Each structure stands twice: as structure tokens, then as C-alpha cells.
């Protein structure tokens, strides 16, 4: 069980690094997916190895997957909108919501 948790931790940190450093907005969204996956690995691992009600961890993993799908759909729609208005999706390209 321990290596699974450490793997999820490293995967989450990798996603964090991507979110903090990417200039491309789609790159940020992809790193976010990595972080969602790390959380899901934790859910499924605890569901298998730790005394809880069986399958509840898997249920929550399904919920996380659905939320990730919804997030990707809305996020990419916003990315397309930004591209149409600013002709570029680098994060320092558009800063109208920054004071």
C-alpha cells in the first residue's frame, strides 16, 4: 500500500509543478488531470487496503472522474473563447481579470 501512496504523492507534485510553470493554458489543464489522477489513486488504494465500507472509495473515484470530465469540457470551452478574443492562449497573454 505504501508505494501506491508515494506514487500518488509524486504524481500530484508533478501535476503541481506543471500547473505552476506552464504558459500554455491547455498545458495547465493537462497537469490538472494528473492531479485528479493522483487523488483517484489514493481513493482506490485506501478502498482496497484500509478498513472502510467496501467500494465507497471506488464510488468517490467515479465522482472525481465525472467532475474531471466536466472541468475539462468547461475549461476547454473557455480556452477556445480566449483564443478567439486574444489570438493566443499563453497565460501572460490575457490578464484582463488581474486588477
Amino acid at each position, binding site marked *: 500500500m505504501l508505494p501506491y501512496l*508515494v*506514487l500518488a*504523492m509524486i504524481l500530484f507534485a508533478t501535476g503541481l509543478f506543471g500547473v505552476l510553470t506552464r504558459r500554455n493554458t491547455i498545458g495547465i489543464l493537462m497537469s490538472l488531470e*494528473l492531479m485528479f489522477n493522483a487523488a483517484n489513486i489514493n481513493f482506490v488504494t485506501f478502498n482496497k487496503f484500509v478498513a472502510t465500507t467496501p467500494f465507497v472509495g471506488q*464510488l468517490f473515484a467515479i465522482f472525481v472522474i465525472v467532475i474531471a470530465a466536466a472541468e475539462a469540457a468547461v475549461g476547454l470551452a473557455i480556452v477556445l473563447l480566449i483564443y478567439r478574443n486574444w489570438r493566443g492562449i499563453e497565460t501572460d497573454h490575457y490578464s484582463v481579470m488581474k486588477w
Partner: protein
Amino acid sequence: MEQLFEGVTPVFWILAFVTLVSAFMVVSLKNIFHCALFLILCLFSVAGLYVLLEAEFIAAAQVLIYVGAVAILMIFAIMLTSNLASRRIRQLNENVLVSFFVSVVFVFAGILLIRATTTARVWHYRPKDLSTDNIALLGKYLMTEYALPFEVISVLLVAAMIGAIVLARKERS
């Protein structure tokens, strides 16, 4: 301490290696399209990890939703927005070093936390055999005990779908 390494097979190490290497590729490659392809590889190996953890339905959902829908959506968005071939643009911003430091500190803090909680026996360690009636039980839970979150999540999905359509639609003046 030995029992905490239960369920760790050679297949696990292979899948973990593939997952981590492709995740590093996702966050470090210059070409965003190659990043998307490595993201697909990473999601596939995470699905393999779910199979190892006896969560076959999650593995199938992972392949269907992530690889089949989300990754393809990402590739669509990349093709619609970035001009990949024309110029080499800088992909990382200026706080790479700080972010790397933060991530490494995060990993070490997390490992210390895991060690502390495992040695203090906070968790009731009891591996379960989940191989029987996997999908049937999941369906039963979704229809009885967790019916309300299930409905809420379907409403959320509809809202996200409508929101995406409204956002991406061409504005008519």
C-alpha cells in the same frame, strides 16, 4: 511495516515507472501535442494500476472517459488553438526553479506524513478481496445509499455541458 508493502508486484513497479516518466514528460516537453500523447500513456498506466487494485470498473471508466473523451478533447483544443509547427515558443514561465522547489518539498512533506501516520497506526490496515460482484455492488450503492450524490453529479454534468456550449458558441450580434 512489512504488511504495508502488500499488493506490490513487479507489474506495479513497471506501471509506476511508466506513469511517472510519462507524467514528467507531460509537464516538461516543449511541444504541447507530444504532452497530450504522453498524457494518454500516463492515463493508460493509471488504469493498469486500478486493475492491480481490483477496481476493474474504475479502470474501464478511466479508459473510456479520460482516454476516450478528455484526452481527445485536449487534442482537439490544441489543434484548434496552438500553431505547433510555425514557431518555437517558450512553454515554461520564469518561476520554474521556485515551482520545482515547492514540488520537491511537497513530496518530502507528504512522505514524512505517510510515514508518521503508518507508524502511529492511525489506519486500520485490512486488505479486502474486492474481486467478486464488483460492478453489481457499485450499481447497488449508486441506486440506494448514494443516490443523492449520483443525481447531483448528473445535474452538474448537464450544467457543465450547457455551459461549455454557451461559452464556445459564436456570439450573434
